[in-house]
Every structure is written in C-alpha cells, then in structure tokens.
C-alpha cells in the first residue's frame, strides 16, 4: 500500500460480483448471529461475520482497519466470548433458532430505515470527486506531505503516530485502563500467577 498515489487514480467501477457476495455473506452471518439459539453457534457465526467484514475493509483499500478487524474482531473477541460461555451456562435446546421477536424486528427495521435514508447522500465508492478525496486541507495534505515529513510510506501510521499522536496516546492509555478495570471488577490483584 503506497500512500503517495494520486487520488484520481482511484476509479469507481460500480459494484462487482465479489462485493455482492461479501455483502450477502455479511448480512446472512449477522442475521444468523441474532437468530441462533445455541450461544456457541452464535459465537462461531459472529467470528465469520467479523472475518467477512475484515475482507470488505481490505477490499476497499483499508488494510489497516481490515487487519484490526481480523485480529481483534474475529480472533481475540471470539476467544473472549468462548471463555465467557465456558464460565456461564449453556442451556440445552431442541430448537435451532431463537423464536423471532417481532417488536424487536420492527424497531431494528425502523433503525435500518433511518440510517438507510442517509445512503443517498453518500458519494459512490472510490468517486474521485468525493469530499474526502478533494479536501486539500486534511486528506490532501496528509497524502502529499506524510512521506516527506515523516518518512513513513504508510500514511495511516504517520497520522496515528505523528500527526494525531496525542489521540493515539489517549487510546493506548484507554486499553491500559481496561486491563486495570477488569481486575477491579473481578476483584483480583494479578492477571496470572
């Protein structure tokens, strides 16, 4: 991934069959996560959903986000959820699916409609005239100057560790605080022996 590509190189080619397949996969796994009655099955399907999402991010040229989604969403979160059901109960069941809660479906549908109504305001994927690619003050500045000013070919890293380093420091401390908070909640003093 080179950061110094001219924004106009990216061209919208419409929606490809690969994207359609990925979106269908993500939709199906998302719905199945909600529907499966067995928690273990829901967790496994949820991991598949995260993996699909990671592929979509990578497909849309955000490999940094894709890597994070694959490592945290599909990997570590799944392990943590599995640990959680190992510590709790898993009721035996005859049913494959949860009975559908229609009021909840109505609320979710309404929410999807509200969010979906904003879709028409979005530029097409990869549209060279979209504000994010034509903005000279922010995106344009980073793409043009990140390599000269930081020497890093990955503009994402230069934004994270240099231009917006203070934000990243805060985020890193939040992760640290999460570890401390987990110890406090569980009433423990050590992570391991």
């Amino acid at each position, binding site marked *: 991934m080179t950061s110094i590509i001219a924004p106009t190189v990216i061209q919208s080619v419409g929606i490809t069959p690969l994207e359609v397949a990925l979106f269908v996969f993500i939709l199906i796994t998302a719905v199945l996560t909600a529907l499966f009655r067995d928690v273990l099955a829901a967790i496994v399907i949820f991991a598949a959903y995260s993996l699909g999402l990671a592929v979509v991010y990578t497909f849309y040229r955000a490999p940094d986000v894709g*890597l994070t989604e694959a490592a945290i969403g599909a990997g570590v979160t799944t392990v943590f959820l599995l640990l959680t059901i190992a510590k709790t*109960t898993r009721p035996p069941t005859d049913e494959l699916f949860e009975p559908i809660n229609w009021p909840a479906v109505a609320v979710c549908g309404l929410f999807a409609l509200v969010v979906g109504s904003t879709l028409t305001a979005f530029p097409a994927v990869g549209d060279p005239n979209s504000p994010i690619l034509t903005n000279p003050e922010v995106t344009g500045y980073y793409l043009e100057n990140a390599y000269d000013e930081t020497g890093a070919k990955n503009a994402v890293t230069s934004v994270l560790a240099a231009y917006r380093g203070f934000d990243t420091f805060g985020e890193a401390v939040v992760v640290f605080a999460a570890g401390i908070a987990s110890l406090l909640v569980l009433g*423990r003093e050590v992570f391991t022996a």
Partner: protein
Amino acid sequence: MSDEPTSQPDERMDGRVDTDGVARQRPVYTESQVIMTTVKAVIPFVMTYGLFITFHGADTPGGGFQGGAIIASVVLMIAFAFGIESTRAWLANSTVVGLGTAGVFLFGAIGFGPILLGENFLEYTAYYPVFGDLLGLKEYEFVKYGMEAVEIVGIAFIVSGILMGLFFALAAGDSHSEPNEADLREGELRDGVDSATFGGESDD
C-alpha cells in the same frame, strides 16, 4: 448442531449435568495431540508475523495495535493447546503487567520528552539537537524512528500485555465466586453483615 437429540447436550463438556438439567460448562482442559502439534507448528510463524506487522508498520499496513494483538494471540493459542491453568503458571504476572506499564510509561516518556525540550507533545524532531550526533541520524529520520518507537515500545507493548491479561482475568473469573471466598461470604451473610456486596474480601 442443535438438531442432535438433547439426551447428551453435554457431550462436548465435562459430562456432568446439574440437578436442574442445565449443562454447566466448566473450562475443562482436554489434552489433544492434534491441537498441541498444530499450535507448536504454527506459533513461530504467528510470532514472526506479529513482529513483522509491528516493526514494519510504518511502511506497510499494520502497526503496534494489530501486531500487539497477534503477539498476544500466540499466548492465547498456547493456553488453548496446553491448558489455561498451566499457561497461567508459566507466564509470570510481572511479564504481563510489565508489558502494559512499560508501554504506557515509554509512550508517555517519548511524548512528553519534547515538552521538556521546549517543543510540543510528540514533536520528534526536538530530539535531534540532543541525540542527533550520538545516533548519527538526520533530522527527518527522527520522525520515522520516533514513530517506530511509539508503535513498538508503546502501543504493541500495551496491547499485547493487556490482551494477555484480560484473557487470564476472564478465564479466572470473579474472585468472589471462588469456593473459599463464597464460604466467607455465606458466613458474613448469616451474621447479617451485608458488606460482602461491597467487597467483603477486604476483611481477609
């Protein structure tokens, strides 16, 4: 999997069904030659990949956060293959806590150092007049290697350490529900003391 007859719902568990018919899943470790061999074979590659993602984050996708998560997943895999409790005994608490604390401390030190030198937070070039001759680096190189330092000894340390820690903390669970503590709490409740809810173990 749920269309199997429910007569053995606990097949994958420890075979115990409580009186209420609910299969309580206990984190029972089953030694598996296949899993142990697979993990042994895969670990060097995962570790190398995690280190590559961390160290090469400035030029390729990735960085400390992703790399740190992959490095932590090595420990998670070891725990799944060789048992959480034996991995807990093998991995010193000081390693886990040390990684997280050192990460915050070093990131903070690199970040606040330039303020002491009269510049802004994380202004890497502020180090040039001080260490430039010593390290033999040009001014612009300080930004790149400064970022690498933040990614590696800052973010990767914190993320890998805390993810390992969260895993073992989750696996151990609530210390209040451990048997000896539960007995203590019962005794307190009998005496009409409800301080147990607010952390009765402080009296221990």
